[in-house]
């Protein structure tokens, strides 16, 4: 993953943003950059207070928090490694203490370490599974008792179309993202009776800094697959998350929504 700081640019909120998430508190993991940043800011644009974690770059994270505060909501950045069970518990406790509750959990943090299977190292496998799959479990595990107790909550997991279809060179990533899909469905069943919506979004190739730095070949291949003929923006993914976190989607659970311009059809 690139360590370049995201240039500050105009953020386009949901078409017709409202106050439908006013007073809600949301955790967005990996919310300091890319798709996660767009999700955090769009939730903020619709009234939610937001908490994001960061691993190393406190500067990036505090910039997002400042943007959120500029929108008029509260924000909190917590240093936490999503792969750590203790960190997840600690972050959820900190968010409840600082922001007064927890209503929305977006498991967005993810990494990739691509390699064909005959060259993949054990470290590459373990690292991706630890962040992308176990990280998602860690936060759901920490938030679930709160959601169960209050009889409401929204969980949105960010998976990938590659978790549905498989992808050359991504055995670790696709296994993790496929695992997130199954996890989403199981948790939807387990928490349904407590009125908790659990869904996932599966983006295709999205115009993030990470992708901007990818080889031209990667973009060209993706563009040849995408029927809408363009890459999606982080905001276009974020708008779908906002919908899923709103009462407009209150009867939707266990769904995997593909946001890919028809890349995987």
């Amino acid at each position, binding site marked *: 993953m690139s360590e370049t700081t995201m240039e500050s640019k105009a953020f386009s909120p*949901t*078409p*017709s943003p409202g106050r439908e998430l006013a007073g809600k508190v949301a955790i967005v993991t990996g919310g300091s950059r890319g798709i996660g940043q767009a999700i955090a800011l769009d939730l903020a644009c619709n009234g939610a207070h937001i908490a994001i974690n960061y691993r190393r770059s406190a500067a990036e994270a505090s910039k997002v928090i400042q943007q959120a505060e500029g929108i008029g909501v509260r924000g909190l950045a917590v240093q936490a490694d999503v792969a750590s069970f203790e960190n997840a518990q600690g972050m959820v406790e900190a968010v409840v203490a600082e922001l007064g509750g927890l209503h929305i959990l977006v498991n967005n943090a993810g990494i990739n370490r691509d390699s064909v299977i005959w060259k993949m190292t054990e470290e590459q496998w373990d690292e991706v599974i630890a962040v992308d799959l176990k990280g998602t479990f860690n936060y759901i595990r920490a938030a679930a008792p709160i959601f169960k107790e209050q009889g409401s909550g929204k969980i949105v997991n960010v998976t990938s179309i590659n978790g549905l279809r498989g992808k050359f060179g991504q055995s670790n990533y696709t296994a993790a993202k496929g695992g997130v899909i199954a996890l989403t*469905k199981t948790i*939807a*069943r387990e928490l*349904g*009776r407590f*009125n908790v919506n659990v869904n996932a979004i599966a983006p295709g190739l999205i115009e993030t800094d990470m992708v901007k730095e990818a080889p031209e070949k990667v973009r060209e291949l993706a563009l040849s697959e995408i*029927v*809408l*003929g363009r890459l*999606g*923006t982080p905001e*276009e*993914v974020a*708008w*779908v998350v*906002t*919908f899923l976190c709103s009462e*407009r*989607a*209150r*009867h*939707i*659970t*266990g*769904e995997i*929504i*593909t*946001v*890919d*311009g*028809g890349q995987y*059809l």
Partner: protein
Amino acid sequence: MLLEDKVAWITGGGNGIGRATALRFAREGARVVISDLDEQGLEAAAQEITAAEGQVEVVVGSVTERSDVQRIVDAALAKFGRLEILINNAGVNRDALVTRVKDGEVRLMSDEHWELVVNVNLKGTWLCSQLAAVPMIAQKYGRIVNTSSIGALGNIGQANYAASKAGVIGLTKTLALEWARYNIAVNCVAPGATKTSMTAGIPEKLLEGLLGKIPFQRLGEAEEIAAAHAFLASDQASYITGQVLFVDGGISVGV
């Protein structure tokens, strides 16, 4: 408002989910055209929309007749000058076992029941999409939302309905592929068991068993399907095409 100034045609807009969708769209700023065979239902829906200060055009017509469908499209263009959104909502069911064995006698689902359901649900979706796409192609903008059902996954007593609703999914994906180049997104909502006249007749005992299978342990509301229609028809869903969105309280999870 989510659908400010958009012109939206909702088929089967006189009752149930279609009526809830038309009202929702009007409240979100859309100018709506509602079509239906039920003239009284249309009038009542139009009154609701007008009372909510919405603009509405009412056309009586069948989604299975090419001349009727063309007449509705023409009416939309004549009244509002554009057509940006089509909600293919009109649908019927005629439930029966394909073969029902009673007292040693085998009774068969009729051709009429097969043809009616497949015609309205599947051919109607095809026809309305085809004719609505003509102005959408010229505008280089369109949003079509079809209506499938959890029935598409198979349901005893609904061979005709299931086949038609599974067909709608294949149609949705194909139209998404064919029309992406014109900036027309085609998606599909698949409601679960929803409180409408279609489910009002479910016997108490069956209903209890059904609720036990729904993670949210309740039926859906027409308004909840309308909200999904509005989302997929809006620019909030600008990067979504060819998708099937189940709005079913989780009943289809794992099926």
